[in-house]
């Protein structure tokens, strides 16, 4: 008979970290469970493809595990971990910078295109179109702009955390985020204007 896995869903992050540091490595599972979705989302947003995002997420967990002793127990694990994900993702896209440009609507891991991946049964056509515009506009931003925006939008991180993740001053976060938002808005307006022009 094996041991039953303890339910740690209500255990605070800091206690789980202590468990892991104390040798209960399987407690790390709970940290993964709590953070996997935003981590993947952030990684995917920055890297723009599943394979790289998967690498980034896995690497980030290993890095977090190695750095766990330096984790501040007064902080939540999630934001701390997302900064690791962001750094890893940026590193990943810098490494691939010399590759050919990845097309916006690259096939996903499941072979589907962006248009096929986004639809949601609960979403009406207009909302879906707006979402696709936003995604397409986001994809046109520079890697740095997309990263800072992803950290703010998907990671919901404060400026200080973003600065830490990207290793830039808070003032740079402010200006980069502002440029990213302006560019996003401009791209969306262009897309909508173009569609309006082409519509019968």
């Amino acid at each position, binding site marked *: *008979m*094996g*041991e*039953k*896995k303890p339910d740690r869903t209500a255990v605070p992050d800091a206690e789980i970290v202590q468990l892991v540091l*104390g*040798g*209960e*490595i*399987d407690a*790390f*599972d709970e940290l*993964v*469970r709590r953070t996997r*979705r935003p981590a*993947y989302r952030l990684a*995917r947003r920055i890297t723009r*493809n*599943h*394979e790289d995002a*998967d690498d980034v*997420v*896995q*690497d980030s*967990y*290993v890095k977090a*595990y*190695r750095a766990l002793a330096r984790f501040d127990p007064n902080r939540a694990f999630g934001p701390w971990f997302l900064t690791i994900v962001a750094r890893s993702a940026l*590193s990943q896209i810098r*490494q*691939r910078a*010399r*590759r*050919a440009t*990845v097309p916006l609507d*690259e*096939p*996903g*891991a*499941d*072979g589907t295109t962006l248009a096929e991946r*986004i639809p*949601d049964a609960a979403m009406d056509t207009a*909302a879906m179109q707006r*979402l696709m515009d*936003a*995604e397409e*506009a986001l994809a046109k931003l520079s890697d740095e702009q997309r990263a800072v925006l992803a950290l*703010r939008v*998907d990671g919901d991180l404060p*400026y200080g955390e973003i600065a830490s993740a990207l290793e830039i001053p808070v003032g740079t976060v*402010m*200006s980069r*985020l*502002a440029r990213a*938002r*302006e560019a*996003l*808005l401009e791209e*969306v307006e262009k897309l909508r204007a173009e569609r309006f022009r082409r519509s019968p």
Partner: protein
Amino acid sequence: MKNDFQHPQSEELFAFRDGELLPEKRAIIEAHVMGCSVCRSFIDQVSSLEAELRQSPDRAPTGYLESLHEKVRARIAVAASEAAGEEAPVVGVPEGGERRRGGVRLRERRRDDAGARRERGRVKEAPVLPWAAVLSTVSAAAAVLVVVAILIKQGPYQRMITPKVPTVASPSAGGEGKREGDARGEGGVTLGTVSDKAAGGAPGKKVAAGAPGKDAGVAAREKPAEETTRGAAPPMAKLDQAPEDRLGKAADQAAQKAEPAPEQLGSVNQGESSESRERLQQEPQASAAPRSFARMSQALAPGYAAILSRFGLPPIWNAASVSPEALANAEPELRSLYVSGAAGSDSARVRLYLAEAVRQRYAPGDSTLYDEIQRHYHRAIDLAGTDVETARVAEERLRTLGK
């Protein structure tokens, strides 16, 4: 007043909206925004866009997030063993701690036996569950049964055995595998890789709970279908849809090395006609083809084949026939191919090439490149599936990667 008609910088507007301004500045910007429809509209538009982005689906392949635990566990186990250093005294226990779980020594021994990629004596284990001992024993028993069954099938004993049992290993390995799977299912989670190397499975992956009931024959029947889909299915999709049964896979791989081609096993196991059974008995050796060779002879993904041809590379990396220059030149194209998803069933081979390409630039102490190389090797092993040659090369190369 003039200031009333000057819009704040967008940095300030967004910082205000994000609640990042100091109180004094905040009051100033707030006063402006309250009276300026242009700024309010600007903020609203951006907020609306961001809300839409937040609503967008994760786009993770089905089952990916759920399977992430296992991949992370395997990576963490390796990291833990590396962090332990050469003389890790007691595994998974804090200094001065009293906890010691049964099976630690068994587990260490199993790893030693496996001669897996983790180096001898450098094991800092994840907490080990008691059923690990059972698993070890059953695993060994299954391996013995596989070997015995192979001998029976190929040797003179075959004629003495009823022809109703022409397959090898299936019943015994499957039976044992089932018990292991059950034990694991009850046991829950382990972080280490369990005798994966010894069993012939790819390292770095935990044996999936529940699945090991599959016998070698069933696995053999399923593999060709899986391979058929691999050409179209991208690498992660394959990983995601297959919670790997490493014990089942071990038996499967053992069967690959000594047994007839998969289609023969498949027909035998499915209660084939006596005619085909006779055919199999009469000419088992003539048509015996390990699946690895079958895989090697399959058509390559067009993009992969084109790159190999352009740079004069063999289908699977090997030190003897790949020049550093050709590898360096091919690397960007191999990366593009992989990212585009066009590598298809050759994704593992592409990752192996990428590992070697990065390794050419690697100097000891460069932890970034070290991590990247490791990642490529691990992924090559994970993606290899029935391509045992690629998995073998990746494992060997991973073992020789010095930090």
